[in-house]
């Protein structure tokens, strides 16, 4: 699989291997969200986004929605919409114009809710759930889309530490289970090295580094782009733990 992105604000060439988890990191305003929105096709961009073999034309509309599912940074939760109906929206690219959702649509939705332990919430309104549960429902909608690629734009921005890990662990499990390719962004350096198997660093709209976490997340690079004094630790499996230190005057 080959995903080449090139956006108006950036000049980025990124190829993502099938089944990998690539995370885009970078300081605020680096263009992470813009890059992912170009991927999702929701921002006008020059250059092309390709999913699949080289020379495949950029997919649009329905076809794109069958290849890429997006977990947005600020999902719009329709007031009063129930969990099941919300997750069912993921079937939209697979449906024609019809009055009721097909048995296949309902089964696929129910199976995903079941997998994410959301079945007891089926009839609850999404906007009545807690932040962590709500984020799981948004992930459920993306999974119901049954796409090979999952795009996660800061999926954990409003969650506390426990729920952040919970969502990321869930994505990690699902990736293995369903052979998903995950492309995402994260701003929290302390967790990124433990989940992604590839990290792309974006700064001021340019791709400045790209590689395995152990190669990329070094104290020097973090100091250069974030201006932060950090210590890193690599374990046997190549996961990187980053600890940051408070800057002291003098």
């Amino acid at each position, binding site marked *: 699989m080959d995903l080449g992105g090139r956006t108006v604000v950036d000049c980025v060439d990124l190829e993502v291997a099938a089944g990998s988890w690539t995370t885009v990191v970078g300081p605020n305003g680096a263009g992470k969200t813009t890059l992912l*929105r170009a991927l*999702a*096709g*929701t921002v006008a961009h020059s250059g092309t986004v390709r999913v699949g073999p080289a020379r495949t034309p950029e997919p649009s*509309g*329905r*076809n*794109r*929605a*069958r290849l*890429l*599912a*997006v977990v*947005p940074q600020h*999902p*719009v*939760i*329709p*007031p*009063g*919409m*129930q969990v*099941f*109906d919300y997750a*069912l*929206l*993921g079937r*939209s*690219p697979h*449906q024609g*114009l*019809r*009055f*009721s*959702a097909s*048995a296949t649509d*309902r*089964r*696929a*939705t*129910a*199976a995903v*809710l*079941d*997998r994410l332990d959301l*079945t007891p919430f*089926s*009839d609850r*309104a999404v906007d009545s759930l807690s932040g962590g549960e709500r984020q799981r429902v948004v992930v459920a909608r993306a999974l119901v*889309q049954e796409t090979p690629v999952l795009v996660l734009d800061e999926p954990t921005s409003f969650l506390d530490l426990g729920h952040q890990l919970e969502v990321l662990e869930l994505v990690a499990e699902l990736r293995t289970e369903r052979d998903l390719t995950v492309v995402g962004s994260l701003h929290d350096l302390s967790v990124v090295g433990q989940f992604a198997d590839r990290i792309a660093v974006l700064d001021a709209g340019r791709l400045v580094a790209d590689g395995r976490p152990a190669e990329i997340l070094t104290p020097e690079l973090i100091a250069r782009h974030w201006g932060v004094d950090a210590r890193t630790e690599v374990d046997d499996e190549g996961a990187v733990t980053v600890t940051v230190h408070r800057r002291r005057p003098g």
Partner: protein
Amino acid sequence: MTSKAGGLNPEGDGRSLLGIRWLLVGVGAVLVSAVVGVATGPVSIPLGQVVRELLDRLPLLEVDSSLSAVDRAIIWDLRAPRVVLGLLVGALLAGSGAAYQGVFRNPLADPYLLGIAAGAGLGATIAIVAELRDVLGVVDPVPLVAFAGALVAVTAAGTLSVRRGRVGSPTTLILAGVAVANFFTAIQTFVQQQNSETLQQVFAWILGRLSTAGWAEVWLLLPYAAVSVVGLVLAVGPLDVLAVGDEEASTLGLRPRAVRRAILVVASLGAAAAVAVSGLIGFVGLVVPHAVRLVAGASHRRVIPLSLLFGAAFLALADVVARTVQAPAELPIGVITAFVGAPFFLVILRRQMAS
């Protein structure tokens, strides 16, 4: 998908049962309101006989109602068309209201408040005073010109409150609608006063033609109603997708602008045809979808069909009230719907401000 969540998932089945239950309640409400509507009137005909007479008309049923020829004529020529027209108009106003609320992502949207009814009214008035009927021959031009007026109005209200795919605040849309409604009503009054020879006809229409309705009005409305209802029912999926906003809707494979436009056309066709036969009746499109959402959830898969059914029943019953509270005089039906709807609107507005 995993086999453990196969066809027997209790959740999925329970949910569709809930939807079916409310559909049955809606059908029941329509039937009850129809019987009550036919049974009520200045000439008292016993309910049992009315029911038997209605059953007799069903295919394969042979029931003797022992009604006199006069009573039979009262039922079939005077009351039945009025009830059927009320049901159709109610369904269209409530269904289009639910669709406008979905498209504009605005709980306050309603064909009346958005100025769509006023636009349709201006269209209908122009069709009447210009005597377009003589031009077009068999096809009655009133609903068509009303439809054109409704489209102009919905486009005006929409462009005033939607900018680059972003929907303005709910109140912006309603204020735009108020301005559009006033503008069209002003032109309508002007056109109407300029043409004194058709004044009576126009007035009769404004006050609502349900009171003088015959089968002709029913046949006039029916084709537009059919197209609009089918369109609205097919739009339930896209309406749900639109609820997550344009950006997310497009990641779900929908083209939000095109879909929005298509749904507005279908909804406005229904609303305009309803206005063309019944005059200006407010708040039905607001009250009914809200009540439906309270009991059956916010998904349009339930909101649209249930709004059609309960809207029909609501308007047929409102008409019964309109012709009985001051009997033998009749109140315009819009008075009844406003009496119920305006306080309801204020409650929703207040809730909106709170959230």
